[in-house]
């Protein structure tokens, strides 16, 4: 086994024993990254920074002052501001932007000794489910079953592909409607969206501020627990970050879920879901039952309204957040023609800088917030959101500890296959994940099987607010029972 294919937990333990150094581990990852340009997962490579931090980590390891993430090489989604390192949210409008500051999440990872390998490709401004909207070009899924190149999912597609292809031991992702969990499921890895407010949003390029949440993308549940511990915590710079103690997530992995109540929501049985996914869901249910959990049928009656509510709220917030890209303070500015004033500068800068999906969402958001439509769309959607949250509140109040659902309505599809589809068809990728963002809950995608062609499929577990520790433990049980060990065979 090569060093870059180790889990975070295994690498941590081995480095503490002195079996290899952080520099050796980092070099293995850098080599794998350079050999994987065909995947297009890394948009900006930072080998010098990586080696410098690896040397610092080795010094800490030697001194016996090594936190869990010390010396662990990570990929960082391009949405996180990284000091002095290009941060573009995969958009032309942020061409050349090098932040003078570091996001709280990446600062914390850095403080814990983690090594940044570079910035990961993603959908532009995290808007997309296939990583086909990036200004860097498409990311290619390392999983391949025929001649087609497959999507790794989105928006954290570079993160998912990099972790699945062993280019890094873990990666940061962000999840606004499913952007961690859907790509995790498409690439056979673990992806967790924590409770809204668990990780600081400060320094993360904003898409929809009431929904955005950062989380870990890793090869195992244990690794997700370790990495989340380093990412989470209160931050005075984010007023929505929760002032709650961060539990020891790894210590919560007892493997014991006896007596836990797992809800199976009937509204998630949707027409057109492939049989393989129905079967996977039924098998996952049995695995949890065999582990001693009590399985109960539950109802989340407003589920079908989650997607339309999301596609009002998220674009509305995006149109407001993305108003800051005006060609004045950072990034791209359109070349002015004679006689152009400031309005032309704004309009041309934004037309050149934003890709088609971002433009569409900004305009939808502008429309639903405009005079005369605010109540009809935006306020109505916010009230429906409250009802979606109430559905979950009632289920948890009735004693349910976690909810099991499919993670995605299909396995990974081919790049370009949705090119002629209606934008709404692409939005349906988020059908099982978006409710969790609207309600602010923690959710985790766990790889549990392969479809008939050999593509990975995942299940999603949804937990109570601030119940990540318990949720990770349930995910750990599911992971062990499913015994998913498949890896993509290297073609790149």
């Amino acid at each position, binding site marked *: 086994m090569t060093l870059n294919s180790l889990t975070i937990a295994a690498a941590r333990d081995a480095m503490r024993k002195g079996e290899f150094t952080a520099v050796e581990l980092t070099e293995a990852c850098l080599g794998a990254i350079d050999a994987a340009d065909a995947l297009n997962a890394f948009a900006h490579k930072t080998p010098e920074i990586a080696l410098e931090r690896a040397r610092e980590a080795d010094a800490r390891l030697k001194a016996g002052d090594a936190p869990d993430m010390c010396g662990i090489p990570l990929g960082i989604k391009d949405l996180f501001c990284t000091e002095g390192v290009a941060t573009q949210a995969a958009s032309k409008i942020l061409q050349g932007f090098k932040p003078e500051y570091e996001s709280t999440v990446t600062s914390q990872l850095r403080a814990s000794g983690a090594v940044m390998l570079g910035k990961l490709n993603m959908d532009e401004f995290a808007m997309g489910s296939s990583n086909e909207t990036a200004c860097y070009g498409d990311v290619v899924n390392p999983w391949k079953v025929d001649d087609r190149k497959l999507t790794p999912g989105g928006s954290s597609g570079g993160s998912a592909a990099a972790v699945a292809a062993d280019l890094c031991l873990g990666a940061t992702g962000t999840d606004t409607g499913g952007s961690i969990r859907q790509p995790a499921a498409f690439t056979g890895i673990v992806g967790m969206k924590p409770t809204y407010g668990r990780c600081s949003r400060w320094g993360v390029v904003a898409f929809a501020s009431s929904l955005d949440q950062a989380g870990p993308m890793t090869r195992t549940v244990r690794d997700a627990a370790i990495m989340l511990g380093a990412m989470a915590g209160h931050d005075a710079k984010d007023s929505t970050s929760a002032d709650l103690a961060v539990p020891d997530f790894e210590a919560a992995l007892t493997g014991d879920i006896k007596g836990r109540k797992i809800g199976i929501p009937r509204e998630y049985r949707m027409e057109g879901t492939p049989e393989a996914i129905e079967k996977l869901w039924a098998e996952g249910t049995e695995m949890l039952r065999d582990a001693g959990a009590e399985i109960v049928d539950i109802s989340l009656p407003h589920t079908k309204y989650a997607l339309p509510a999301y596609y009002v709220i998220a674009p509305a917030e995006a149109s407001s957040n993305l108003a800051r890209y005006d060609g004045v303070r950072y990034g791209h500015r359109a070349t002015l023609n004679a006689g152009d004033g400031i309005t032309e500068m704004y309009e041309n800068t934004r037309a050149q800088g934003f890709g088609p999906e971002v433009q569409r969402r900004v305009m939808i958001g502008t429309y639903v917030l405009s005079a005369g439509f605010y109540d009809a769309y935006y306020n109505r959607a916010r*009230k429906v959101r409250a009802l979606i949250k109430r559905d979950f509140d009632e289920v948890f109040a009735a004693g349910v500890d976690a909810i099991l659902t499919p993670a995605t309505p299909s396995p990974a599809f081919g790049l370009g296959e949705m090119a002629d589809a209606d934008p709404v068809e692409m939005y349906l990728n988020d059908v099982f994940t978006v409710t969790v963002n609207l309600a602010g809950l923690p959710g985790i995608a766990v790889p549990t099987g392969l479809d008939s062609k050999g593509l990975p499929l995942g299940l999603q577990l949804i937990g109570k607010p601030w119940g990540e520790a318990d949720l990770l433990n349930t995910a750990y049980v599911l992971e062990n029972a499913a015994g998913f060990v498949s890896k993509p065979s290297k073609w790149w």
Partner: protein
Amino acid sequence: MSTIDLETARRVAKLARIAVPDDNLPQLAEELSGILSFMEQLNEVDIEGIEPMTSVTPMRLKRRQDGVTDGGQQAKILSNAPDAREGFFAVPKVVE
């Protein structure tokens, strides 16, 4: 109820400060209409007496003293500007 006609598409683009050439307006109007009709499903929901959601669990926003906590970073703030001169962001003339 709502389809977006060319004029509305033009107005939305203007409000969003995104230049859309006339030739692209029909397609834009059609796409926006498609998305809006997807949203129409929300009209089926009874929202009588429901307050919009504000937080995941009841949480009071933190307060702090209303004082200066940061500053003196002019060079850093201007470092990414496409056009900065003499300590300012430069833009085309706004006032005649």
